């Protein structure tokens, strides 16, 4: 259940890919947080995540949650970005039978879901294969 305030709060991450680098140890946090999980530092600088990375693992969702029925089956993966940060997102415009661990991918801004109850169109990042 994604209310409009809840959706709006995450826009800097979902639309602009904003992350936070710990000033003390350099660990990049996505989404930003108040305490660094590596060194408990509390001072951060705003940064933007790397646009490309490689598929660390993935699955093909055949039994979807509410709001994702139209695009089923679809791939969701964990992408290790070139800055070392890992994110979970859909991998689209890919041949599901050809998808492999290690596949290079690039971020794109897409519609992610239509929230049923409030009718919100929800946007964010997805990944597409590079060099295919």
């Amino acid at each position, binding site marked *: 259940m994604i209310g409009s305030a809840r959706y709006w709060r995450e826009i800097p991450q979902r639309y602009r890919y904003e992350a936070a680098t710990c000033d003390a140890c350099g660990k990049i946090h996505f989404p930003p947080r108040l305490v660094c*999980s590596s060194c408990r530092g509390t001072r951060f600088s705003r940064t933007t995540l790397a646009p490309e990375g490689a598929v660390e693992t993935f*699955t093909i*969702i*055949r*039994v979807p*949650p509410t709001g994702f029925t139209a*695009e089923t089956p679809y791939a969701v993966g964990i992408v290790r970005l070139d800055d070392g940060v*890992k994110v979970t997102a859909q991998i689209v415009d890919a041949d599901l039978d050809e998808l492999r661990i290690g596949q290079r991918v690039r971020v794109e801004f897409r519609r992610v879901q239509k929230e049923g109850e409030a009718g919100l169109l*929800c946007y964010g990042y997805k990944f597409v294969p590079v060099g295919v």
Partner: protein
Amino acid sequence: MRDVAVIGVGMNRWGELWEKSHRRIWTEAALEAIADAGVDHVDALYVGCMSGGLFMGQEHLGALLADQLGMGPIPGTRVESACASGGLAFRQAYLAVASGEHDIVLASGLEKMTDVDGGAATYALSTAADQEYECYHGITFPGLYAMMARVHMHRYGTTREQLARVAVKNHANGLLNPLAQFQSRITVEDVVRSVLVADPLRVLDCSPITDGAAAVILAALPQKGSKREPVKVAASAAATDTIALHDREDIAWLRSTDVAAAKAYAQAGITPEDLSFCEVHDCFTIAEVMVIEALGLTGRGKGGEAAASGMTALGGRVPVNPSGGLKSKGHPVGATGIAQVREAVLQLRGESEGRQVEGARWGLTQNMGGTGASSVVHIFTRA
């Protein structure tokens, strides 16, 4: 801290219990545990429940259940740690007795999952993952474990058949447990031909949606004139990890289980080789594979071979999930951790008819929340 024992256990047949309310299911299990222990009161109760709100539209279970048991005004505490709620409720009850705050405590677990439709149940379960940065993108719980399985298979060569063998073994054990939801033998062929849910996991790799409750009674040792042979809680430990799978250094390693188990072995003064049996959190076949690695029953990456080789079968070196596990016994999430304790107690009393591990001396239970963001490990022995 005082020594603590389990002196009574209770559980009803699990399954799709449309004719029974959550109050009735829970109270039946609680009354059985109280009768088994032969006590006339409890000083407090703890109940593990993952999502009374989303599954039943009912919170405030500590008070509700104390009243149902006719034992108000005793304190009632609801404990939540997703699918590890039962294990953590047991740990809170253990700490309450060990600390001296209470002498006799009821630890219980409850989940009524079939009053909502499949979509709502899937949503409720998904709240154990990161709603904003995992579920937002359309991932499901089978999907998260599928991503762990894919890394395990890619890195360690774990095979599709090895995963299937976990389900086959646990269904075979469940056939010997009259309270299990499924009483059916399945084959490797059945598993690998069942419907794909999230590649590479299929429906027979997944634990089911279940209604059920379980309860146990804890008391301080020594127990004078106890009706039942007390089973000692030799260790109690819990640990956490990142809630989002992608935030972990190693997606194919259950750090919370590793950390909790290491603490528990140290408390009990034993090593994994001393264990007679384990009840572990096989919410998916890959979960059992990864859990037994983190518990040190096999080397890292070697968990896939255990079920296939017979090592973890009844009669094997260390039987895992003699009760049938979550896969066959059912997985009413909040009750699972308590049912694991019940099985450990029955095994150590020598009362697991049909599935008894001969000469059982040390038993371990491992209950896990989400993709391993929380783990609770207990070790039991004869008092």
